[in-house]
């Protein structure tokens, strides 16, 4: 669907995006992940045709961005970072204007706006000026703008930034729902978001791709070692350490909180073998009271740090 090859962008000698190559297939939700200033927004702006690449090619379906910019923009729906909209227009008027430019017929416009208002939860603010809306509502108007023409490809730059937790969940649901039929690229620096919504994640740092894999296999990579968190009552750290170090495969046992009546430790297990059964049996042999026992889920967080923090 989208093919990006050796994409490079220089801003006055500063290299924002350096030789990026990736492909997006139809129906895929791709997450562009990276720390601030990694080049996510620049990449998306080039894909939408807003910025001209210094070098490299972008092909969307059979169109190339240099020659068929207008056709590509007809296929795309784009939500820029922080949704910069016309503040002096009413939401309804704004969406109407977008619909006109997207060449909707007069009768369809009203129907389409109602539909989008329903989907994005905008119906109660339809007749208010955009400038007066809260951040979350502006973001929704931006999303409605991007989805206006029911485009095949949606490009969303930090779609959940500035939203409250409830709104984040809502927007993610919307994205997932439309992602069933559409191709979506979204950028984010929030890992849990990429994990929750994306099929595939491309991690970029300093303008380069450092990882490109499905969310699942990236998570697998993180499971080279696993951490188990245990909180016990009636036990000293010393006795816990003695007891548990009998188990094969445990690398280290580190105390987290041993000051109060409870003892909290983190057990670092090396292999991919799940040692929780073993540990439980050991604990059962004693008269300790098991208050908490869980596997620390090592998510994309760790990989992200490994790839993006300079050693």
């Amino acid at each position, binding site marked *: 669907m989208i093919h990006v090859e050796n994409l490079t962008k220089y801003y006055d000698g500063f290299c924002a995006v350096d030789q990026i190559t990736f492909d997006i297939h139809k129906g895929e939700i791709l997450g562009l992940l990276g720390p601030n200033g990694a080049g996510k927004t620049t990449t998306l*702006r080039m894909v*939408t*045709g*807003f*910025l*001209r690449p210094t070098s490299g090619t972008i092909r969307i379906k059979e169109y190339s961005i240099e020659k068929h910019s*207008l056709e590509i*923009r*007809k296929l*795309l729906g*784009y939500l*820029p970072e*922080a949704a*910069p*909209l*016309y*503040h*002096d*227009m009413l939401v309804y*008027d704004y969406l109407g*204007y*977008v619909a*006109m*430019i*997207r*060449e909707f017929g007069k009768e369809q416009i009203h129907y389409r706006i109602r539909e989008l208002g329903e989907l994005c939860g905008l119906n109660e603010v339809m007749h208010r000026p955009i400038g007066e809306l809260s951040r979350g509502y502006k973001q929704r108007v931006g999303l409605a*703008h991007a989805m206006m023409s029911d485009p095949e490809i949606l490009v969303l730059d930090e779609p959940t930034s500035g939203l409250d937790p409830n709104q984040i969940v809502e927007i993610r649901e919307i994205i997932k729902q439309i992602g069933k039929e559409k191709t979506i690229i979204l950028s984010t620096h929030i890992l849990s978001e990429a994990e929750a919504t994306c099929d595939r994640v491309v991690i970029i740092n300093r303008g380069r791709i450092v990882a490109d894999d499905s969310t699942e296999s990236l998570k697998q990579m993180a499971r080279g070692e696993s951490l188990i968190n245990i909180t016990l009552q009636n036990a000293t750290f010393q006795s816990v350490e003695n007891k548990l170090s009998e188990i094969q495969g445990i690398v280290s046992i580190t105390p987290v909180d041993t000051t109060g009546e409870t003892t909290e430790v983190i057990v670092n297990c090396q292999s991919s073998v799940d040692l929780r059964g073993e540990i439980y049996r050991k604990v059962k042999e004693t008269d300790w009271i098991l208050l908490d026992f869980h596997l620390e889920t090592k998510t994309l967080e760790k990989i992200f740090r490994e790839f993006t923090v300079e050693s």
Partner: protein
Amino acid sequence: MRRAIHIFKREVRVYFVSPIAYIVISVFLLVMGWFFFTTFFLFSQANLRNFFSLLPITFSFVVPAITMRLFSEELNVGSYEILLTMPVTFLEVVLGKFLAAVVFLMAMLIPTLAYPITVASLGQLDWGPVFGGYMGAVLLGAAFAAVGLFASSLTRNQIIAFIIGMAICFSLTLIDKMLFFFPQSLLGLLQYIGADYHFQNISKGIIDSRDILYFLSVSFVALYGANLAIQGRN
């Protein structure tokens, strides 16, 4: 081109929704009214020559004030990112905004039709020069609007856009009044560049294709410049 019309409609609506439009119109009418009628009764001649001779100077600062927001505001808010990623061409954007400014100018000139009507009731008014004057005013306003639009496409700061636009319009207006500073070989060229010279021709009622061509070419060059400036940004 249909999309240019949608952009045009939006811009016109924004003009008349915001208070700035009414402030600019009021200031324009106040300035024109005062300068025209203070001397009108001294001359006791039933014509609008004085009104039209004032117009280029007044337009030099009023028109850039009208056009300053057209691109600068979008650049400042960032909404031009949304505009340029919709399926519209640069040309459609520039034309839509330009036409909106011209229509606004026409709306601003409509109340001044009260002057010829008043004057006609006081004496024998020759309507030929009045007709020519209004046609010239629209052409002059269009040229200055194009210049103002170009200035607006250069910067995200509306005040800077206003000052650049005003500087160019003032230079165009006043250049043929300063001819004695320049070497003789340049006089013909500089006089041709001056907007006032061409405008005064039309407002005398002489409609010469050279003058019309002048205003159209100024508009074209400035719009082309705005088009390039917007494209060059990214």
